[in-house]
């Protein structure tokens, strides 16, 4: 049989780190991947529940994929099928927030057979992962630049804080045949800051306290600041108490930079979080994010790079802040799976202008692989 060609180059990796990247890229590139030694020396070896849940999610949106996990769970072999998409529902494991799953889903969504309409249930905000508010505020505008415009939405129907979750989001994404090459190089100037302070199963006053403190910090930079409060009660508020703040700075060219802070989950070690500290912390993080700068948020770097690499066979450019380790690894994986190498240049600020715009920016340039949506049906 002819599948020999694809079977011959199985990519092998070790460790559970970057599992999502590897599985997502394997799915997109249709190359089988084998991940060995997953926590093999750990007290609790093998894939954990949240990873298993992720693998299940992957199985749900693909058709014909084969996943083999060995007995101890330390080795995963994944032979991808075709992305199917459509209407799916998934109960995400509470160990990780929905953001963990959603990030991967965003990478896959534009290439499905049917437009994706995913309902994810679980923890919407926690301290480890990217929250859904954050993705909604920063990632969706980014996706629009690649031509994913109609029906792109992330709706938070229920909120659920860690550890018990109970939140629900609905993510819809169109599936064009090809992605547009982009040129995201103009940062512009930050013109406004928006925020969303949420509070679930705690006093509604908490959100207002967060807003107050965050404004106290940010008002010194800019006047156009508005922070929405989102207090959820009853069924909509999930199962655990929690509160948090997501801030987004928008520039004149539509670049979104964000930051967030979430309260310490119930039952965790340490003192309970004070809303004022949280507000200040988030605002400071926003300033740090602005310091890092770039036209793509540090969390979304990998998504932007992925879609640049999967674009048409044209040059795409993006200016980013310092690369995160996750992104660096992602670049290497992109080279493994798609043989795409990015041209990486450091942009130096002009000497004569001497503007204070934070860290040195990095310009990444690549030629897309001309990836087309192979699963979508044509008439």
């Amino acid at each position: 049989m002819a599948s020999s060609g694809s079977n011959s180059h199985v990519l092998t990796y070790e460790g559970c780190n970057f599992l999502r990247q590897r599985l997502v890229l394997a799915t997109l590139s249709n190359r089988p991947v084998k991940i060995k030694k997953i926590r093999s020396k750990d007290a609790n070896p093998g894939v954990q529940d949240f990873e298993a849940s992720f693998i299940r999610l992957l199985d749900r949106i693909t058709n014909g994929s084969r996943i083999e996990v060995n007995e101890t769970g330390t080795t995963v072999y994944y032979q991808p099928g075709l992305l199917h998409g459509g209407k799916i529902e998934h109960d995400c494991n509470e160990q990780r927030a929905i953001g963990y799953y959603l990030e991967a889903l965003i990478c896959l969504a534009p290439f499905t057979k049917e437009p994706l309409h995913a309902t994810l249930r679980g923890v919407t905000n926690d301290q480890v992962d990217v929250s859904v508010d954050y993705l909604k505020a920063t990632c969706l505008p980014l996706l629009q630049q690649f031509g994913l415009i109609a029906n792109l939405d992330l709706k938070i129907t229920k909120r659920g804080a860690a550890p018990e979750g109970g939140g629900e989001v609905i993510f819809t994404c169109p599936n064009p045949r090809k992605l547009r090459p982009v040129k995201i190089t103009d940062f512009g100037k930050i013109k406004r800051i928006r925020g969303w302070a949420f509070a679930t199963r705690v006093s509604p006053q908490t959100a207002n306290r967060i807003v107050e403190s965050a404004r106290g910090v940010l008002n010194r930079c800019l006047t156009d600041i508005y922070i929405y409060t989102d207090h959820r009660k009853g069924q909509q508020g999930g199962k655990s108490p929690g509160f948090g703040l997501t801030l987004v700075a928008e520039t004149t060219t539509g670049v979104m930079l964000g930051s967030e802070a979430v309260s310490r989950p119930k039952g965790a070690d340490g003192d309970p979080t004070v809303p004022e500290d949280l507000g200040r912390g988030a605002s400071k993080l926003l300033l740090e994010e602005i310091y890092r700068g770039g036209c793509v948020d540090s969390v979304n770097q990998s998504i932007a790079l992925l879609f640049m690499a999967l674009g048409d066979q044209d040059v795409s450019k993006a200016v980013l802040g310092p690369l995160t380790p996750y992104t660096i690894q992602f670049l290497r994986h992109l080279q493994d799976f798609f043989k795409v190498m990015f041209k990486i240049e450091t942009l130096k600020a002009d000497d004569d202008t001497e503007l204070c715009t934070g860290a040195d920016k990095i310009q990444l340039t690549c030629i897309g692989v001309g990836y087309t949506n192979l699963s979508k049906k044509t008439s």
Partner: protein
Amino acid sequence: MSEFEAASQKPHRARQHGRKQEKKKAKTTQDENLSAKQRNPKAFTAQSAVRMARQYRRAQDVKTKKQHIPYVDRTPLEPPPIVVGIVGPPKVGKSTLMQCLIKNFTKQKLSNVQGPVTIVSGKKRRLTLFECGNDISSMIDIAKVADLVLLLIDASFGFEMEIFEFLNICQVHGFPKIMGVLTHLDHFKNNKQLRNTKKRLKHRFWTDVYPGAKLFYLSGMVYGEYQKTEIHNLGRFISVMKFRQLQWRTTHPYVLADRMEDLTGPEDVRQNPKCDRTVALYGFLRGAHMRANSSVHIPGCGDFVVQDVSMLHDPCPLPDKEKKRALNQKERLIYAPFSGVGGIVYDKDAVYIDLGGSHHHQKEPEQITPGSTHELVSSIIDTKHTIDTKMAASEVSIFRGSVPVTSTQVESSASGPQEEMVTDETTGRTRRRAVFEEEEEGGENSSEEERDDEEDEDGMTQVDPEVSFRTPGDGHASKKRKVTGQEKDGYTFADSDDDLEVDWDILHPPGKTPVPKMTATSKTVKTTEEEDNTDKDDDSEDDDGDEEMDVAMETTKEKNPSTQLGRDSLRTKNAPRETTTEVDVPKTMANLKQDEGSAGIVEQKAKKVDSKAEKSDSEMNSNMSDSSGGEDVDEDAGSELDDDDDDGDSDDEVDEEEDDDEDEEEDSSIEEYGDEEEKDERITPDETSAVLPLETEGALKWKENLSQKATDAFLRRQADTPNLRKLVYGRVAEDQSSDEEDDELGGLFKRTTKKSEGRRGGPNDLDCAKFPITTGEAREFEEIYDLIKDCFVTGDWGTQDAKRQLEEDEALYGDFEDLETGETHTAQTEEKEEEGGEDQKDNQEDQNSGETTSVDKTAQEKLLEKKRKLKELFNAEYDNEEGGESYYDSLKQELEQQAQMNRAEFEDMDAETRAQYEGYRPGMYVRLEVPGMPCEFVTNFDASYPVIVGALMSGEDSVGYVQMRLKKHRWHKRILKTRDPLIFSVGWRRFQSVPLYSIQDHNMRNRLLKYTPEHLHCSTTIWGPITPQGTGILCVQSVGDRSSDFRIATTGVVVELDKSVNIVKKLKLTGYPLKIYKNTAFIKDMFNSILEVAKFEGATVRTVSGIRGTIKKAIKAPEGAFRATFEDKIKLSDIVFVRTWCPVQVPRLYNPLTTLLLAEKDKWSGMKTVGQLKFERSIRNNPSQDSLYKPVERKPQRFRPLRVPVKLQQHLPFKTKPKQNPAKPVKVMDRPVVIMEPHERKVAALMKALRSVHKDKKAQEKQKVKERYQNYRKLLEKETAKREAREKQSKKKVYSMMTQMETKRKKKQGLSHDVPKMGKFE
């Protein structure tokens, strides 16, 4: 006075005669004749709104029709040669045409053309001519790659099937340009017949191509060639032709191979003639950018992964860009290795080098660009001493401050290796292994894939450092030990990889070098080195000369297989690449503490410097990611692990030695860092190749003033941002190891190392995209805000500042007056100068000529800039004149900009780096090394069949269900049957598969069809290679036969790809009533078990008579029977059935056509259809008796009488109502017989007699009356006749009297009347 003047002025007199008057007259008269509308059409344009709308719509239609979907122009600056396919039925003159074209362009006569021939046809155009054979496989392949097709038609015969078949193939696979060429026109003796034929053929051709398609006429032969002028014209047409981009080809890179080399070792072939071959294919890259290690498909052969892509010197370059009218003789190049042009002739078992007397040979020196290769060779030639003596003389200090070691010293501690031939069973490749006496009993390694390496390593690792090159995890990656002499004042290998060798040389004592026995001549060695160098060199100066040499060597090798060295060196061209991968291995090992590998420890040591470099990388990484881990720890771990890895279990001793060494090194790590760091920074992407030798040099001289360097580097590092490219992609990027993908192990290890330095880098760390800023807490708000204050709209806008822009504008556009304020702004003096007079400038120039030139220049530039801006402004305004630009225009502009960006982005990079980023560009001459080719490809190689290497995009190398829309070709004789195997041509591939035809019902159900519809599209599903949607499909039933029928069975397009299918066919289950109640019945024999029934509960059933019902529930006995309810009582004789849909499996047959592997390439035969098999074996099915046709017997129909229901009758009118008691006829026979009495009888007899008398009397009377009446009639007639006669007589009298009276009266009146009137009256 004025009055006088006025009087004196003559009044104007209009001209009465002459030219002017005539003109004027003509004008006025014309005006008179025309209608107002004709005279002034513009005034009447808007008379009807409807008409206006229609006109507008039509105008828009016409405009839109002209528009094509704009695309990004990706044609390279130096495009590849245009593929001209010469196609036609046999004996039509293809070869002759090809020869003539070649002769026309190159003035050379090529007698025996085989394979593609590349020629330079003009200043900007090259052509690759290819003669397509007559089998359908070649035709399909050529249609996929040809840019222009010369379709030869034998005019004396007319069109042949091949022509139309080929046209249809072209239509499916993107329509290339097609030019018809009519030959054999000299067969026509009659001129008129010739003309008619031409016309007929032309019009038929036009219907299939497009109206107005070019058709050439080659009128006749002169001395076996076509007429020169005609060929010349044809050539000119080809030279100026423009081409459209075809969808498939712009997205898929491909190579039409014009040269093939078998790289497999002759020894392997000798031992196992059927072993898989490694083949190098050469050709111009076309289509899109090709990335290294892409998987490819070779039509007629199969799927492969290209192991190595390297660009070679263009064998047929375009002339220099000088302004000339025509090419000179030297520039008319021709390149056709298969045909023996270009220096080398390939035969089945030998290679001949053509030293020919043609000018071709002379150009070679020009082609060799003066580069390192050349210098290297010359340096080798110039060498006075042998390597051994040099080695002996050289000394090396391994560590700082240590005593330099000479080769003799090391010699004492180690004994030299001996050569041994090893043949790898798996790959069938021979290697030369160096065996050390002490370590014959080497340890064993666990991993099987590295088994062949292990022996080497065991041999080498213990005592003496020795370089071994290995590719981790690759079964047939070549492995080689390289021995090179290195002397400081001697030649150096200008390559980074060589620093390994150098290091090794340093470490290795001279004299004891494991130099393989030089069985080959010294010349061979030189060549080898040269070869290595060429490959390593980023410029890759592989020119004809080199190749010739290589080949020459290969031939010698083949003649005496015992001399392996040359061949080996040739074969393992990859060695340098492998080493580069190797470099990465150590760092990766750092993470995987437990991992066992089998790399030579010694090479570890040899590469100390490199690993240091990596460490510096990692340091940068850690800087970036703000890790707290100290470098020392990392390094320790790293080095230890390296060792662990590399020696496996066997060499513990050495381990420790190594560790010591490492520690020592680490002490001086700072200095080394500096050194390496410096180098790292020197390596910018643009100058990799240039820098690499420096690195080598550095490795040698790293001892020199280290501390100074370290401080320098440290400072620089502080100032600069880290070299990100290196940080991300590591060493690989620098050295372009194309092998990295092949062995994932290497790739993997490298990667994980990087992470280990990062915060969350460990292989089992938390997987999270978020990267919290640890410094965030440390920094205060004000501190951060000061750094970013210009990011906000409130900050400084820099050059975008409105105020600053205004100033600049002023400078640019000069002075103006603000009308509101009345202020007058003046431009700066510089501007004034330039706009002002020339005088000033002249003066200035006089004063100080030196300075002014520069000023002048800048001024001029500014002027130019200004002009350009103005022009742009004007253009923008001019284009937007009509209500802004349309969507189409803006889209076009956008794509144009994108194209420009694509071109400009990597323009100024060196070729090798560029290839890493964007892949190999179309237009390059590349060499593709393809391992694992079947041996038949080589043994049955025939250059006259096209060898296409078509790259596959990601995902296209897998197999799945392909759904397509097909239509039987209208010229194909028969419809096609489901499950009959069919040969598909999709994308690059040709394969056999088993299709299922289906059609979609209205409820989206895919229903299986037994046969393709006659004239309708149907959906078809096969198990086959994933190919993008919208790709054209062509099917033939067989490629072997050449029947007279039209061979193309169907054409279509790919619609959908999936990993599962849902095609169903109808299945009716029948059952019989068991027992019938009123509306309920028990049905048996439909199912076999209760379970089955349970599955169908609620399903609709129906009887043959049409009574509908539902399955209710299973009953206990008999098994499978069930209760069903019906809308009416059914009969026991009814058959009950349920309609079900049964999913159909698509047979998983995907059988690529392996035509290129056959000795007779057009005799491929795969799976046969059932019909074919039956026909061949003359099997006939016994038909079911029920299916046979019998004569139909029909009984006469008898209808029952009509019964009107009583209720209806009541409502009917009386007339139509059937009567209650209709009068029944009296039956006479029913009356009783009367028996009369004698008396009565007498009376009756009397009465009868009387009656008969009476009757008789009556009859007589009647007779009498009749007679009387007749008599009377006669009398009456007589009377009438008499009377008539009498009347006639009297009438006669009266008329005559009247006449007389009349005449008398007329006579009386005749005195006054004319005679004619009288006559008239008469």
